[in-house]
């Protein structure tokens, strides 16, 4: 069974997914697959080789999809396939088939294994596993610059003899050796295409017992008329479709026997080909130790976090103000005139104005300044390796909520805007972690909701009341998080994480990654912002508010003890959260008269407190909801929404009784 162009996560177990680009282009050019452990600089290497920057990160497991690029080397053409970082062929990341299926699905005619020149003992086992598949192999001894900074030099000629495969010294971020390595792999792939001599292990460097075990499996399954299997339907299918040789499949089936062999061979060979000089410890290493040490790591983490948020806020506010000013002078007046001229019905014209004028502006003044900036900051933190290192410090605290330490950053980012924070959960490994983090993110008031809390409470009930409201919200969030962790099936797997070295981020790569994520945000949020604003405008222009208010009265007045008009503001806040308070005022003025322009004339401080807390938590705004659907599917998004709504209503009902308004 071959699946073309399906999302990898949706490929059924046992089936083999083929990226459409690969399927189509493979007819013309040979296919080379890039394989390597996380953090070996594989995506940077791929970007160098193909001239484009894929979404990479100095973090395990960010290349979740499969990127494919066509490269040209002089006369030659080839397809490069960038596979996710992996620890072994049987390794599977959350929601994906085991790695070997991804690899075989790409139908490579050669494998380019990228290893860390400074850490061969831990990187060669994967290269050996690839070699055991019987496909032509080229090894790139990458990060040669970092290795040399540690006084490590590798005898590539000797390693090449041992592996019986070309070995090229490379420095991915500078492009050194990249073309040579790719060219060597393409040459082997072309030869493989003409003469696919997928033979047995040429010179298996393993103990005789292990080799015999593999050969026995291969013999049993490939004997004529045999109904022997590899004990894994996916392997049987791969062999039947000639994607794997019987012996190659047998090396996967016998992984448990072969892996210890590979590791001991790798250690022996690494000792034989590596020369270590004594050098002063590189600065990056000393820094890497400092950032994970309780002192000064913990204060540094606090500082970096606060600085990231403040920078995003300050720069974001300035840019948003500038964009708003320009928009008000340059775009708004002609746009308004145009809409009035084109749309004849006044109510429709008003709704269109809401959508195109204030809706687009809201998109622009949230999207570009806050979201794009946050993505740049996040990309820098990821690519520098700081995020993974620093997360070690907060791991234990986050564990209480079923989350790894890394979740700190997206959750804190939620105080700015929930939408990028939901996309930011991509840095987490499992769906469970990402769902739990997203639940907390949605509970966290974004800057728009915080503004409502402050504006509703500070002028009338005083700043202390606003602080108290935030305290209540924070306590509720933690309690809900603990409860969700206890209720959601499954457990968080405890941390076993290779700490990436600290590296200077590559500007273009940071920009590419931030842009890549920003595009998902715009695609999700922009249409929704427009439609939401249109509906809001229509509601306010057409007088649909009255029936809505009556329908909500049991909840608004009965449970929460608020004036009926507040219910409409809460519900319509779904469309434009930052407008919840303005909506309340506009609606109140329409109903009670101009006297209502002061909140205190129609709501008591107690009612305002309840309103503030419920708005602070309430439910995801429409853009956040869309990002949840985008990332987790409609069912999970609905579950998160209902859970948050439940928390908000329960808390509001209880608070209303406590402060005595209901």
């Amino acid at each position, binding site marked *: 069974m071959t699946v073309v162009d399906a999302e990898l996560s949706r490929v059924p177990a046992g089936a083999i997914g083929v990226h459409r680009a690969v399927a189509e282009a493979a007819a013309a050019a040979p296919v080379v697959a890039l394989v390597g452990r996380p953090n070996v600089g594989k995506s940077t290497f791929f970007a160098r080789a193909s001239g484009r920057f894929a979404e990479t990160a100095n973090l395990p497991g960010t290349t979740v999809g499969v990127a494919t690029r066509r490269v040209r080397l002089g006369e030659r053409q080839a397809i490069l396939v960038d596979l996710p970082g992996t620890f072994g062929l049987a390794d599977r990341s959350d929601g994906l088939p085991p790695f070997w299926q991804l690899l075989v699905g790409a139908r490579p005619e050669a494998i380019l294994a990228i290893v860390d020149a400074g*850490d061969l003992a831990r990187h060669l086992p994967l290269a050996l596993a690839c070699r055991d598949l019987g496909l032509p192999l080229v090894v790139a001894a990458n990060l040669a610059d970092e290795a040399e900074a540690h006084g*490590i030099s590798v005898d590539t000629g000797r390693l090449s003899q041992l592996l019986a495969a070309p070995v090229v010294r490379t420095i991915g971020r500078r492009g050194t050796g990249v073309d040579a390595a790719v060219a060597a792999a393409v040459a082997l792939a072309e030869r493989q295409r003409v003469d696919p001599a997928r033979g047995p292990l040429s010179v298996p460097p393993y103990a005789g017992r292990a080799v015999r075990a593999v050969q026995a499996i291969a013999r049993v399954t490939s004997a004529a008329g045999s109904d022997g299997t590899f004990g894994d339907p996916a392997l049987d299918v791969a062999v039947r479709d000639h994607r794997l040789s019987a012996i190659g499949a047998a090396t996967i089936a016998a992984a448990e026997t072969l892996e210890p062999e590979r590791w001991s061979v790798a250690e022996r060979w690494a000792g034989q080909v590596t020369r270590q000089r004594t050098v002063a410890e590189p600065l990056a290493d000393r820094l890497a130790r400092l950032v994970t040490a309780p002192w000064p790591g913990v204060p540094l983490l606090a500082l970096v976090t606060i600085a990231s948020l403040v920078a995003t806020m300050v720069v974001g506010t300035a840019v948003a103000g500038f964009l708003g000013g320009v928009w008000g002078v340059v775009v708004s007046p002609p746009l308004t005139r145009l809409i009035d001229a084109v749309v004849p019905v006044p109510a429709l014209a008003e709704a269109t104005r809401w959508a195109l004028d204030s809706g687009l502006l809201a998109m622009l003044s949230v999207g570009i300044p806050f979201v794009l900036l946050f993505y740049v900051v996040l990309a820098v933190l990821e690519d520098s390796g700081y995020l993974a290192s620093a997360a070690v410090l907060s791991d234990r605290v986050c564990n209480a909520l079923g989350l790894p330490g890394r979740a700190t950053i997206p959750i804190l980012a939620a105080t700015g805007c929930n939408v990028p924070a939901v996309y930011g959960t991509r840095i987490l490994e499992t769906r469970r972690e990402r769902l739990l983090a997203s639940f907390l993110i949605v509970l966290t008031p974004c800057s728009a909701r915080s503004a409502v809390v402050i504006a509703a409470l500070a002028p009338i009930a005083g700043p202390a009341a606003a602080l108290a409201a935030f305290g209540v919200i924070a306590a509720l969030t933690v309690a809900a998080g603990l409860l969700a962790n206890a209720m959601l099936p499954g457990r968080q797997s405890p941390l076993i994480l290779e700490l990436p070295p600290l590296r200077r981020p590559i500007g273009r790569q940071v920009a590419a990654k931030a842009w890549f994520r920003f595009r998902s945000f715009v695609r999700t949020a922009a249409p929704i912002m427009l439609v939401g604003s249109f509906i809001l405008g229509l509601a306010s222009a057409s007088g649909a508010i009255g029936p809505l208010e009556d329908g909500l009265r049991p909840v608004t007045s009965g449970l929460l003890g608020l004036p009926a008009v507040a219910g409409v503001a809460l519900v319509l806040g779904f469309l434009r959260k930052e407008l919840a308070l303005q909506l309340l005022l506009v609606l109140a003025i329409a109903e009670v008269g101009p006297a209502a322009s002061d909140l205190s004339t129609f709501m008591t401080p107690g009612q305002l407190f309840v309103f503030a807390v419920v708005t602070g938590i309430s439910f995801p705004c429409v853009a956040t909801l869309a990002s949840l659907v985008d990332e987790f599917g409609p069912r999970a998004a609905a579950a998160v929404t209902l859970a948050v709504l439940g928390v908000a209503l329960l808390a509001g009902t209880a608070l209303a009784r406590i402060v005595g308004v209901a």
Partner: protein
Amino acid sequence: MPTAVPPSPARSLADLDRGEVATVVGAGREHRTRLAMQGIRPGVVVAVEQDAPFGGPRVVRVGAVRVAIARGVARSVLVQAVDRPHSVEP
């Protein structure tokens, strides 16, 4: 004076002091595969570098890299302390 140093008894990785160096003897079944993928296998020498606060992960050096291991996992790793001729703490 004994002529040969008797082998020190096996302890868990979580029990080592910071700065101590030890050889891995084995690991509990639950985490064995994930540890092995990080190169923490029998016979490998590890050095305890740091501990995160509040009972957070333990950072150990394995060859060229540092690996953070949750305390609970570290408890499942059996090690044998190595006598250090001199401090190897980099």
